[in-house]
């Protein structure tokens, strides 16, 4: 056993995607937001009139709504100091070689082209406001699967977009959904036809490059009856001294018997406000799953939700959060049981250290129609030092007698007994701590696609080495 116990970094605060490329945009709106800027974005995208009108409505709602009084500290978020639309290139590329050099280098360093070769059925890459690269395996497009950027979908599949856009998350849902409705750009549109199961994940990479950037991607996924799709998104950004804003809206429709899994590995740099609205509507016997990992950002407020509207629909939310110095992860999930025999499960794991703060915030609702519904929420939190903080804010609203609802949560530090056990078997303190933390998040990490799981474990291992250098 070491004679003195030194404080060391258990989880690394080093951020390896913090590099920035020169800002070689082809167009950007002026700083700040007003109706003119909204119109300019829409005009630039040559959108149909109904979308321009919807954007302007979203802007009105955004102006009218106050900032939320709960959650994280939004008082320093300056809406006037942000570029709401930055177009990085003239057109979308179909091969990585066609991309401007800086952008290609960025994705090479994040490792996207390599992952595409090995693990993925399709890739979309968004750089600032626009999706700059898109691909989908040929067999998949032959099966009728649509996987394009949201802008392309509005152009090529206007009827589908019009039918679903804003139906799961209305423009006036909350302040940030309204902002997204006004300023959205990029994001993915996915349609999976009846009975089609997409074996490999579809993936989107979101990159903010410019400083004072607002990224507002909009994603819409429609899984038709009996289909399956797994969508994965990753996010990174350079480190700047000024703040950026990421405010996405993700709407998902899971039709009868379909299953959608949406995995997020959010690793924004520590100057990004990440305020995202994500929701799925799950119909009869459908399954909707959120795997939501939040490692980066300055402040994240994100509560992916499942509205279970059909008999036997199932919703699952696996949430993981890590907060280091200067970070607040206010994450969790919501499950609304609006039909009989629905089931829901939320598992949340959070780690805070170096003054970081993690908060679990959740809602579980049983409506009078939710006979024989079941739900369970489990939240565990680890606090690694005395400067850090952990909160749990669950809410359970029960309007039905024939249900089963359970919630449990624990908050603690790493158990002395666990450490002692491992160290008595010859592990040093750092390895013992790493082993325990890896075990703690394992239920979530094992649900990640392999390359992300490896990355996650490496991240935690790296810090152990952090004690040396």
């Amino acid at each position, binding site marked *: 056993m070491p004679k003195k116990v030194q404080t060391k970094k258990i989880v690394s605060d080093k951020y390896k995607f913090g590099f920035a490329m020169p800002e070689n945009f082809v167009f950007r709106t002026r700083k700040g937001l007003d109706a003119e800027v909204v119109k300019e974005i829409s005009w630039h995208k040559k959108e149909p009139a109904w979308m321009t009108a919807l954007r302007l409505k979203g802007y009105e709602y955004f102006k009218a709504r106050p900032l939320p009084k709960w959650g994280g500290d939004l008082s320093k978020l300056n809406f006037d100091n942000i570029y709401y639309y930055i177009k990085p290139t003239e057109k979308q590329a179909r091969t990585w070689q066609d991309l401007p050099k800086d952008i290609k280098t960025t994705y090479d360093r994040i490792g996207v082209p390599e992952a595409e070769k090995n693990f993925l059925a399709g890739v979309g890459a968004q750089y600032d406001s626009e999706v700059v690269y898109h691909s989908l395996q040929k067999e998949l497009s032959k099966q009728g699967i649509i996987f394009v950027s949201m802008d392309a979908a509005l152009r090529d599949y206007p009827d589908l977009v019009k039918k679903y856009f804003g139906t799961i998350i209305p423009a006036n849902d909350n302040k940030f959904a309204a902002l997204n409705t006004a300023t959205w750009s990029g994001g993915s549109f996915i349609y999976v036809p009846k009975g089609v199961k997409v074996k490999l994940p579809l993936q989107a990479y979101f990159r903010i490059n410019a400083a004072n950037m607002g990224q507002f991607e909009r994603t819409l996924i429609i899984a038709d009856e009996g289909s399956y799709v797994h969508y994965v998104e990753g996010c990174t950004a350079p480190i700047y001294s000024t703040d950026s804003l990421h405010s996405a809206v993700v709407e998902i429709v899971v039709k009868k018997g379909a299953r959608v899994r949406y995995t997020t590995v959010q690793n924004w740099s520590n100057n990004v406000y990440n305020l995202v609205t994500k929701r799925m509507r799950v119909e009869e016997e459908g399954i909707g799953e959120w795997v939501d990992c939040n490692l980066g950002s300055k402040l994240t407020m994100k509560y992916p939700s499942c509205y279970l509207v059909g008999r036997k629909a199932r919703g699952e939310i696996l949430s993981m959060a890590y907060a280091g110095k200067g970070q607040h992860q206010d994450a969790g999930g919501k499950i609304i049981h609006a039909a009989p025999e629905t089931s829901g499960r939320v598992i949340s794991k959070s780690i805070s250290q170096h003054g970081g703060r993690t908060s679990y915030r959740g809602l579980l609702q049983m409506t009078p129609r939710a006979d024989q519904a079941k739900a369970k929420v489990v939240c565990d939190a680890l606090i690694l030092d*005395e400067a850090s903080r952990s909160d749990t804010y669950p809410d*359970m609203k029960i309007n039905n*007698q024939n249900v089963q609802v359970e919630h*449990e949560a624990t908050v*603690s*530090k790493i158990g002395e007994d666990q450490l002692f056990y491992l160290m008595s078997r010859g592990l040093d303190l750092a390895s013992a701590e790493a082993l325990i933390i890896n075990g703690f998040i394992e239920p979530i990490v094992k649900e990640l696609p392999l390359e992300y799981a490896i990355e996650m474990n490496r991240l935690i291992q790296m810090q152990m080495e952090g004690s040396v250098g």
Partner: protein
Amino acid sequence: MKKERIIIDYLGKKKNVSLSVKKGKSLIYILLGFKPGDKNITVNLNGEDAEARILGAIIGKNGKVNINTFQHHRAPNTKSDLLINGVFLNQTSYKYEGLIKIDPKAQKSNAYQKNNNLLLSDRAHVDTSPKLEILADDVRCTHGATVGRIDEEELFYLMSRGIPKKDAEKLVISGFLKSIVADLVDRKIKQKIESILEREVSKII
């Protein structure tokens, strides 16, 4: 053994209750609720080694019941334990909000909080929100909440042994409520609470 201060309180009496526990002292607060009403209970654990238990048994027959609890750990090595069990009938609306807060200096503290609810009516409404705010690291906090109806298997077990359904229900419900005092050391008070709960349960079934 520490000498325990025991307080028995009822819903409908004074709304705000604020209690402080000094260094090395121990407190048990028992809340019984058989009619609508609001109660805000704050327990401050102000001195080292202070301990508090908050126990509650609620039968909601109608109207609104609002209970807020706040377990505030302000000194090291303090311990708090909360258990509130409720049974709700008719159109009762029950709102429970509980907060455990552990201040940065309250290291080596332990806190528990549990809110269990049985719904006996389709029109009853329960909204429970047990919260934690933990600002110290060397602590252990656990909370939980459950909402459901009477376990069919428990009823079936009793009925298969010849107990009529009504009596079986009564047994399950009074057992559920009485469990809050299951490990109370003071036998006299324990028996008193149990007989009160038994009497109240017979009124509803």
